[in-house]
């Protein structure tokens, strides 16, 4: 009974739209069986857990501000312009072309890339410096874009037991206008998710989506596998790579998985490797 009560309270707390109210009424009129009630309440919670796009974008702002609190933007207007042009071109090849996609280069020697819900994408200056050509950077950016497309960060927040509070509690605070609580929870969530990383299967999925986005955009889809081969030659003990190694499956496993997925699917295409990053930064500095 206690469990049932808890579920009901939870469902009242999250009924903020008309359809949810209607479902709640329906729930009250269901059969007398307690099990049935509990089941319906549980389903209701699952359904209303969906975070809508404005909420996703708002949450992304908090996540992005958190990352920028850890490392600021690289003070190079040309580099920032370049990643925004390239990144935005990639997003036009996707099913969510109109999100407020924004790209940034963090002033950091390390090798990493991040995304936030709603379409903020970051790469580090150290990553940019280690790309052999544009198709490799395209592989990395597309991998991050894929995390946004498939809402992997929101999925991480919905993981059972995440920080003791779920995604709905964060979003509820937002809906109710409890901004202080909302921002505090979003900050905690961002720190947790960037330190622990996403679900490993979501990383493999992002790799598979990324090679297709690259190919659609006209780039050599083997840029991402090439980046993963570069990572193979790096040590997880190297502090410039350690966070990436801690939060991702091993490069070996990722290449094995991509090898299976890509086999005979990318035989011929109209792709280019692209210029070197050095050439691009020169071009965009003007």
């Amino acid at each position, binding site marked *: 009974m206690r469990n049932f009560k808890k579920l009901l309270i939870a469902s009242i707390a999250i009924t903020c739209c008309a359809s949810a109210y209607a479902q709640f009424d329906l729930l009250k009129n269901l059969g007398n069986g307690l099990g049935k009630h509990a089941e319906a309440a549980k389903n209701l919670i699952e359904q209303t857990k969906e975070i809508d796009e404005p909420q996703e974008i708002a949450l992304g*702002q908090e996540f992005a*501000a958190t990352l*920028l609190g850890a*490392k600021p933007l690289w003070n190079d207007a040309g580099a920032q312009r370049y990643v925004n042009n390239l990144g935005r071109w990639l997003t*036009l090849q996707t099913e969510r072309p109109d999100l407020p996609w924004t790209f940034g280069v963090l002033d950091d020697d390390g090798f990493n890339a991040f995304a936030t819900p709603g379409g903020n994408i970051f790469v580090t200056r150290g990553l940019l410096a280690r790309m052999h050509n544009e198709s490799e950077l395209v592989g990395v950016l597309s991998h991050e874009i894929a995390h946004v497309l498939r809402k992997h960060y929101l999925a991480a927040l919905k993981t059972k037991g995440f920080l003791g509070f779920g995604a709905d509690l964060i979003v509820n605070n937002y809906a109710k206008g409890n901004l202080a609580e909302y921002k505090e929870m979003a900050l905690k969530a961002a720190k947790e998710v960037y330190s622990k990383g996403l679900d490993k299967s979501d990383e493999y999925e992002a790799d598979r989506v990324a090679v297709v986005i690259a*190919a*659609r955009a006209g*780039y050599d889809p083997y840029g991402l596998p090439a980046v993963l081969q570069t990572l193979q030659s790096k040590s997880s003990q*190297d502090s410039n790579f350690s966070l990436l190694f801690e939060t991702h499956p091993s490069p070996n496993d990722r290449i094995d998985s991509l090898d299976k997925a890509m086999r005979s699917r990318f035989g011929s295409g109209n792709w280019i490797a692209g210029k070197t990053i050095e050439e691009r930064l020169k071009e965009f500095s003007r």
Partner: protein
Amino acid sequence: MLEKASADSAVLATLASQTKLDAIQRQGAWQQVKTANGQLGWVDMMSLRFESNGNSNSVNNLKVLGRTSNTGSVGTGVNGLDKTDLARASPNYSEYQKMQRGAVDRSTAQSFGQRSKLSGNRMEYLDQSRNTKREDN
């Protein structure tokens, strides 16, 4: 190992698994390699695994697993963004606003694509169950 970066090219040699090779250059799915006796040729890049000895040009052929975790350079270089940086972070909204001002619109991105001679390709996602249409541009 093939003569050219193409599947219908002549076969120069058959390499055993775990043959050590030097990586020269990559062309799409093909990697140009050099054998121990100096012979040049092309192999499927996905069959290569790079060694972790810091010499990034040395590779092993065909799925050599296991990375030796060498001593690394903890404390000797500048640290990349790590968990400590994240734990200490407080949100920087003014930096976020600065970043937002750098966002570009669709037409700017499209002209970047044209200028870069990028022609879009049609292709479905690899996960059959989650195919989604691509936006034409």
